[in-house]
């Protein structure tokens, strides 16, 4: 299959996948607190599934969403209700929930046909607030503002007992999600998305049905988010509307921005970077700082996020993946000075 992935070195992919699955064993060997790291990695994996879907919507189709936490919330609550209250098996919920969330993507995709840019950002933001309120209003099923307990998942007879089991389940889905997203991007669908992003008029002139493909983009993105939502509900075992804040939606955008808008690997890299930053590096450095000046712990974290985001937008708009590509090209052409060509 040369041609489709021509510019990529595919032989590294199996090694990378193997590394992902060996990581927990390495962690267990190296540290005592490996369970904590696994929990963080699990959260990162869930967010990766979501940001990959968000990247298809925002990065590839150019439709901005400031309400993706709402899709995550719908997914999490739907799955919790289906599994715990309707008694459906977890495997079935993994199929039904993404479809339901994808359909709810239609609800927000419909106004998106007429509006764009900032207006779309605001509409999706409003959608986020509305969904949060709806969840509280439907308190017979969702438990209202008090939150909802979620049972442990049973996957084909295997009960996901702890983060160790969960890691393997989540990362299998992460790898699947990345592969599917890459297939979508390289297909007719993905090319249509990119054409819409680059110029709606030109895309329309080339025979791309704008409404159809924009709706498709919202549907697919919603499905990814719904999938992430199912895993989220059964990983954290407790969901409440506080988890799905507007700030979370903004962080998702930060993740794809830091990783590099419009590349699937970028979304993965950015999510890992932000989640690891949030949970591992900032607490380290916060403890040191807290001894010098008295500081609110949560605020410093948010402050650093804002700063990272601003610096990336101003100085490195291509994100981490763009940096990596530049570096790779630099080494490939090493003796010649490629810097002039890539600035």
């Amino acid at each position, binding site marked *: 299959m040369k041609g489709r992935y021509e510019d990529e070195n595919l032989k590294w992919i199996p090694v990378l996948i193997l590394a992902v699955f060996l990581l927990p064993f390495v962690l267990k060997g190296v540290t005592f607190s490996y369970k904590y790291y696994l929990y963080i990695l699990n959260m990162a994996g869930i967010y990766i599934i979501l940001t990959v879907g968000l990247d298809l919507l*925002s990065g590839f189709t*150019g439709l*901005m969403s400031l309400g993706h936490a709402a899709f995550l919330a719908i997914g999490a609550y739907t799955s919790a209700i289906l599994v715990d209250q309707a008694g459906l098996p977890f495997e079935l919920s993994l199929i039904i929930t993404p479809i339901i969330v994808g359909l709810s993507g239609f609800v927000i995709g419909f*106004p998106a046909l*007429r*509006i764009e*840019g*900032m*207006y779309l*950002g*605001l*509409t999706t*933001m*409003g*959608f986020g*607030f*509305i969904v949060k*309120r709806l969840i509280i*209003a439907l308190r017979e099923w969702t438990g209202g503002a008090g939150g909802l307990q979620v049972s442990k998942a049973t996957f084909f007879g295997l009960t996901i007992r702890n983060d160790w089991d969960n890691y393997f389940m989540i990362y299998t889905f992460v790898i699947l999600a990345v592969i599917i997203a890459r297939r979508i991007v390289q297909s007719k669908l993905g090319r249509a998305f990119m054409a819409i992003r680059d*110029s709606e*008029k*030109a895309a329309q002139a080339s025979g791309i049905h704008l409404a159809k493909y924009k709706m498709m983009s919202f549907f697919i993105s919603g499905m990814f988010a719904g999938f992430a939502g199912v895993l989220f509900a059964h990983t954290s075992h407790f969901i409440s509307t506080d988890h799905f804040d507007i*700030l979370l939606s*903004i962080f998702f*955008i*930060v993740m794809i*921005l830091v990783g590099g*808008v419009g590349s699937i690997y970028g979304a993965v890299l950015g999510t890992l970077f932000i989640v690891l930053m949030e949970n591992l590096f900032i607490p380290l450095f916060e403890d040191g700082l807290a001894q010098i000046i008295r*500081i*609110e712990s949560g*605020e*410093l974290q*948010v*402050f650093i*996020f*804002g*700063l990272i*985001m*601003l610096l990336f*937008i*101003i100085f490195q*708009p291509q994100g981490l993946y763009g940096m990596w590509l530049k570096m790779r090209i630099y080494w490939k052409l090493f003796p010649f000075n490629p810097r002039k060509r890539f600035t």
Partner: protein
Amino acid sequence: MSDLLTGLLQESVSGIALGCIYALIALGFTLIYKATEVVNFAQGEIMMVGAYINFFFVTQFSAMAGGLTGWVFIAALFCSIIFAVFFGIILDYIINRPLKGEPVFSIIMATISLAIILRSLTAMIAGPISLVPVSPFGDSTIKTAGIVISVLDLAIIICAVILMSLFFFFFNKTRWGIAMKATSSDSETAQLMGIPVKQVYRIVWVFAAIVGVISGVLLAPRMALLDTSMSYLGLKAFPAAILGGFGSIPGAVVGGVILGIIETVSMGTLSFHFAWIKEINDIIVWIVLIAVLMIRPDGLFGIAKVKRV
């Protein structure tokens, strides 16, 4: 029945005052949008910073003067406005200049990150405890025809009207105002015509900061406690601006007042009479927003934009 009517009227008055605050915030980002085409999501945070700065000056001056006199508030307002001038210049350097000509997506995210930075910085500096702002008018009220109006609400309305008319006049009649209009329609041609585009941008950001700070100063005493969640009101001003038509100053006023009234009325009398309104009154502005965007995306006063290819 007349009970309901009085209640509605009463709430409409306080809704107009709230709407004037929305209108002032909306005015802040309308100004920036008109001249630079940047959508400033941080306007609510500028307002919050203004409220905090004003609180700081009020406490400092009243400690110096030995009591809360009228002069303390005037001096604090004056100092806050001076602060706003510098603040606006700094924002112009940080946000506007590096992002000239970037896609909308990046600019929105940059202003959102500015909002995050401002909010967390304020929270870090001011500490976790909410402040109790003092109103220069105390609790004094005016009573007419069964409706009680607080002097503060009246002051907000008057201030808003004065500021709005000043800016409307400025934009349409003065040389600088016309220069701003020219810059907004085509900055390169404006520069070729001898308009100092950089200075125009700086002035616009300074004006937006001043409007933001003043709205913060006015809003703070209206709230029982002053904390960083005040900045979320800035987000609610977006539906107001869109309802009126984004980028139009009269639109900002009308949209702000309408939304203010809708919000206050639905929170008050109506929620006692209809249970379902109680459930939706904190998202009612967003429902209005989506409805407006679906029915008439250009708002009440906006002009339909011709898309350039």
